[in-house]
């Protein structure tokens, strides 16, 4: 027990003393999330542009009415309205002659909405002109719904991706220590292999928990992301996910003799998962022929599990498939990792 705890303690010390490791483990995932979240995540408010051709009292009143609508801008156009519509500079063109407005819209859905808004404005102007009291009124209140904003989708995806990378790259540390002869030196002591590996796994679990906390906290502080599910129920998923990817990383460390080979193998494993396993966009948006490939990627099950818990509050008992898939990876790759584990470089 003493050896196990001392190993975990020293592993963590070494980790927190390595700036590059700190950056890739903690700063990079957060920066990545902030970058992607800022670029694609903010849900833009309503904005539309209406072009008005013609003049007179109706035109002036309509311009006035439309300018009161939040997000709506209006331009008076003397000619070339159709071209502006076609080029997407305006959503709707209103040609006004006397008391008649002729609305021209495109087949874009935004154009359809804006033409309805303009018609609503004309209707309101009619009611006002008739001095009729309003019989029916409607008010609007906005509520936030989890899972509809991009950050709700992205945060669990980034968490899954980070766990994958940390797990996969945990094997490269073994390669470094093996090539330096440190593993062989440790093998010369009575320390059981299981304790050495167990301490390594525990260290990674601590890292994974810190990563998860960091990502969720930053997502909440920066993007007002509020997890719905019970965060404690994330832990079994985090542990199993990290374990699955660590076994892949250890397996790679077993078969690769050099860092170069290990990095190449790790990239071969991680890159398809980054883009096909539902980190940045839903798997349902993938082309149909790629979906079977996505279904065999372990990260797909981790991201879907994390998302289900965090965004929808799904209880773990409903995530049996995700758990089985990750456990299968951990068992198969764990067995391969044990089979190929080497304390030292092969003799030449």
């Amino acid at each position: 027990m003493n050896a196990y705890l001392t190993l975990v303690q020293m592993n963590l010390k070494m980790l927190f003393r390595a700036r590059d490791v700190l950056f890739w483990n903690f700063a990079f995932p957060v920066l990545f999330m902030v970058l992607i979240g800022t670029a694609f995540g903010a849900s833009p408010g309503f904005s539309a542009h209406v072009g008005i051709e013609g003049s007179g009292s109706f035109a002036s009143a309509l311009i006035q009415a439309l300018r009161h609508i939040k997000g709506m801008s209006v331009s008076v156009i003397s000619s070339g309205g159709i071209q502006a519509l076609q080029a997407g500079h305006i959503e709707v063109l209103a040609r006004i002659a006397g008391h008649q407005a002729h609305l021209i819209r495109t087949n874009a859905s935004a154009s359809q909405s804006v033409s309805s808004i303009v018609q609503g404005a004309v209707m309101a102007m009619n009611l006002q002109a008739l001095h009729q009291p309003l019989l029916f009124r409607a008010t609007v209140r906005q509520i936030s719904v989890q899972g509809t904003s991009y950050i709700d989708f992205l945060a669990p995806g980034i968490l899954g991706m980070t766990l994958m990378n940390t797990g996969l790259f945990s094997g490269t540390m073994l390669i470094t220590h093996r090539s330096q002869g440190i593993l062989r030196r440790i093998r010369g002591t009575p320390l059981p292999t299981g304790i050495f590996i167990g301490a390594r796994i525990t260290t990674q679990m601590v890292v994974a928990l810190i990563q998860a906390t960091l990502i969720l906290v930053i997502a909440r502080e920066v993007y007002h992301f509020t997890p719905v599910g019970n965060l404690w129920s994330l832990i079994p998923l985090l542990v199993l996910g990290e374990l699955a990817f660590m076994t892949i990383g250890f397996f790679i460390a077993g078969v690769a003799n050099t860092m170069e080979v290990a990095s190449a193998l790790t990239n071969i494993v991680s890159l398809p998962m980054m883009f096909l396993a539902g980190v940045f966009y839903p798997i349902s948006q993938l082309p149909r022929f790629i979906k079977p490939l996505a279904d065999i990627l372990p990260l797909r099950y981790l991201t879907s599990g994390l998302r289900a818990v965090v965004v929808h509050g799904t209880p773990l008992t409903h995530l049996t498939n995700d758990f089985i898939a990750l456990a299968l990876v951990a068992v198969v790759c764990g067995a391969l990792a044990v089979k190929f584990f080497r304390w030292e470089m092969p003799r030449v």
Partner: protein
Amino acid sequence: MTPVIEVTNAVKQFDSVRALDELSLSVIQGQVVAVLGPNGAGKTTLLEVLEGLERLDAGEARVLGYDVGRQTREVKERIGISLQATAFFDRLSVQETAQLFGSFFSRRQDLPSLLQTLGLWELRERRVSGLSGGQRQRVALAMALINDPQVIFLDEPTTGLDPAARREIWSLVEHVRQEGRTVILTTHYMEEAAYLADNVIIMDQGKILAEGSVGQLLRDYTGEQTLILDGEGLDYLTDPPWNFVADNGRLVWHVPNLSDHLDRLLSDIRSRGSVIHHLVVREATLEDVFLRLTGRRLVS
């Protein structure tokens, strides 16, 4: 006295190389034994077998009465090792490294006094990455002693060190011996073996060629003196009755009481019309023993 190390007919094969070839060996407690031999002689393999890092293909190795192949854990608990390529975790301090390695054993030395003995107390907060070669080797020695072992194995403990650092390691090994521990070290420095060892084992191609104290080896395999000749028309001296050994274009002759033979030798050379360019007489060394045993130099 019961031997602390006993090897019987040990065989270890790596692909086409027979690293240990029916090797047998016995070491008694409290000795410093130097295993001397060129690269590839099997020195490191011998140590690694005794340390439980390599398994024998045939034969038996016992350390402190335990069968290394079957009771590896018991052996590892009781021995100290320093491997040839010494590396420790760069980002840990000397003290942390000692804490870590200490935690691997059920029996531990008192850390502060161990670090003080090895001159590492002042360096205890320093990261291993910031240490010099000699300091790292002292850390390696500290890690070898951390479990208060009865036997310690040092694989080329001074290779790559400057003469001052080498002397420092020598005096530490001397100190370890005074504590009553048995030390087995490999080296290809003859002066190291001569300085430290009670017993020298000369190895080549997986076999022990000779074994004994330095004085005994010199007596048995060389004369008390060595004559080195360089010249023209001297090649015939490798034949009887002279039996010189050819070494890098020179001719070496190990002979007791050189003065008794010198007159006869010089007149023989003169009578054949051969020419001597250089003539050197020196005391014999372990290098001469090795040359005599194998016809090759220890360090090429």
